[in-house]
């Protein structure tokens, strides 16, 4: 279960980046290649307004999943000027406290966005008529993953990657 919960979102995240680039390229192709062709042939243009909606939905999912994975990867910007001077046991206590805070934040976001998803489920986007609840579901999934990764990280020791203490005389 644990390896799957760690690897599956990573595959999805990489896939979302490639998908987002593909969608944007599709938009460029439809706008700059197909539109002049359909104009020249005097036929109905191929609709490309969906590109923006799909792109934005992809970015929202990418952000929420990636923010959760960032907790496991420790990729979020961190200021480390005090904690590494503390005794090891205190450092560990701070590490656990921080990850419990992150888990609480993730849980709260998941809960709030679940309620917002239900509230917005019947509203639809203008072009593709996608449920606006889909945007909020991304934050619910991201929030739940954040809780999982934060609790998992709290059980392990660790320090931020970039720190003032990295380079010393």
């Amino acid at each position, binding site marked *: 279960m644990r390896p799957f919960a760690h690897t599956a979102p990573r595959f999805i995240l990489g896939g979302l980046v490639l998908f987002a680039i593909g969608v*944007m390229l599709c938009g460029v192709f439809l706008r700059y290649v197909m539109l002049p062709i359909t104009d020249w042939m005097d036929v109905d243009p191929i609709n490309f307004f969906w590109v923006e909606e799909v792109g934005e939905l992809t970015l*929202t999912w990418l952000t929420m999943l*990636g923010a959760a994975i960032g907790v496991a990867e420790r990729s979020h910007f961190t200021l480390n000027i005090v904690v590494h001077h503390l005794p090891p046991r205190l450092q560990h206590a701070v590490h656990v406290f921080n990850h419990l805070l992150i888990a609480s*934040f993730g849980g709260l976001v998941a809960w709030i966005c679940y309620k917002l998803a239900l509230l917005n489920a019947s509203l639809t986007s203008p072009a593709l008529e996608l449920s606006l609840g889909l945007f909020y579901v991304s934050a619910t999934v991201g929030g739940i993953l954040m809780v999982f990764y934060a609790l998992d990280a709290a059980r392990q020791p660790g320090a931020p990657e970039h720190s003032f203490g990295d380079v010393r005389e």
Partner: protein
Amino acid sequence: MGAVFIGTLLLSLPIVFSLGAAAITGLIVGGYPLQQLGSTLVGASQSWVLLAIPSFVFAGSIMERCGMSNALVELARAMVGWLRGGLGMSVIVVSYFFSDICGSKMAEVSALGSALVPPLKRAGYRAEDAASLIAAGTAMGMLVPPAIFMIVISAVTNQSAVTLFLAGFIPAAVIGFCLCVLVLVQAHIMGWPKDSRLSLRRLLHASREAAVPMVIPLVILGGFYMGAFTATEAGAIVALYSLLAAKLYYRNVSWRDVGNIAYESGVTTASVVFLLAVATVFQYLLGVSGVPVLLGNILAPLEVYHWTFLLGVALMTMLFGMVLEGLPAAVVLIPVVFPIATKIGIHPIHFDIVQTAAVGIGLFLPPMGVGLLMALKFAGVGVFQHMKYYWPYLIALMVGLMLIITIPELSLMLPRSAGLIK
């Protein structure tokens, strides 16, 4: 709210969660609905402009993995290596080229540090000077498109990313020129050698080798100048081009590498966009609690002249940027100060360019700038040992910044001639 932010920040809670904790505290204490957190988080990450970030990060990582930094280093050495201190100067030139391709400062320091520190040391440059050259060059490169920071600041201040991209080319060249003059002076004082003799054949060969990566800045500059595409579309085109170059020309990047790079680009993008989204809640609370008015009163004495205001805010951004890294500083501070700048008549694009330059310098400011710390790692020098050799470079950067502040046309000339601003 401020106490929660600073307290958790000092406890090494990631900055985005410090902002989040402070925002939740502010919402509860202020009696605002917590739904504000969810709707703002989702709303702020639902942005077409920010969609340019994963493409540029992906393209930059692919090009870096291909090893094209070596071709750019060769081109820079062929261009200016025949001058005294030519190798040092080529660090500045290659930083300009490389920033055009790679949107990430950390990737740039890493690529240039590993490619240039060893030859600099072999040519007799002190390790401290090698680190200073990499740091100062990369700080200047902050202004060269497609910097991720520029996309974020364009979103934060509601300006066109394309206009900002175009506006950055000349100010970056101005700071680069200041640094090159410094290198020339240092070279005469320190006796730094010429790197090579002037050779047209070498220049042509290096240009041919660097042609593949150099297409990207030409596409960006030409495409934006002619108004052919948006920043987001440019990102997609550049990503496709870099993938094709990697698979068909360099042939040293596997599909597994592409997958890994896509994943890493996703993590980088998420940390930037999520930070921006959480900071939006924080900014809202700062706004309703009157912080912008308070800051406006504090900055009022500086508002007499545009340059004093810009310099004051730039120094603040630099210090914030050194402590909080560039992006967090920008998303917290700049939205608060931006309305004051436009109110006193500073052009929004000019303001954004000055702040971008300031954040670039802040990232490489001793003793805590993360970019500087990374450059020092490659040179194997301690931060305090390095400081006494770094100040001339900081002065050159500040002279460049002052020129950008006092001559707004340096920033506005290119977008104006392209018809993007009046």
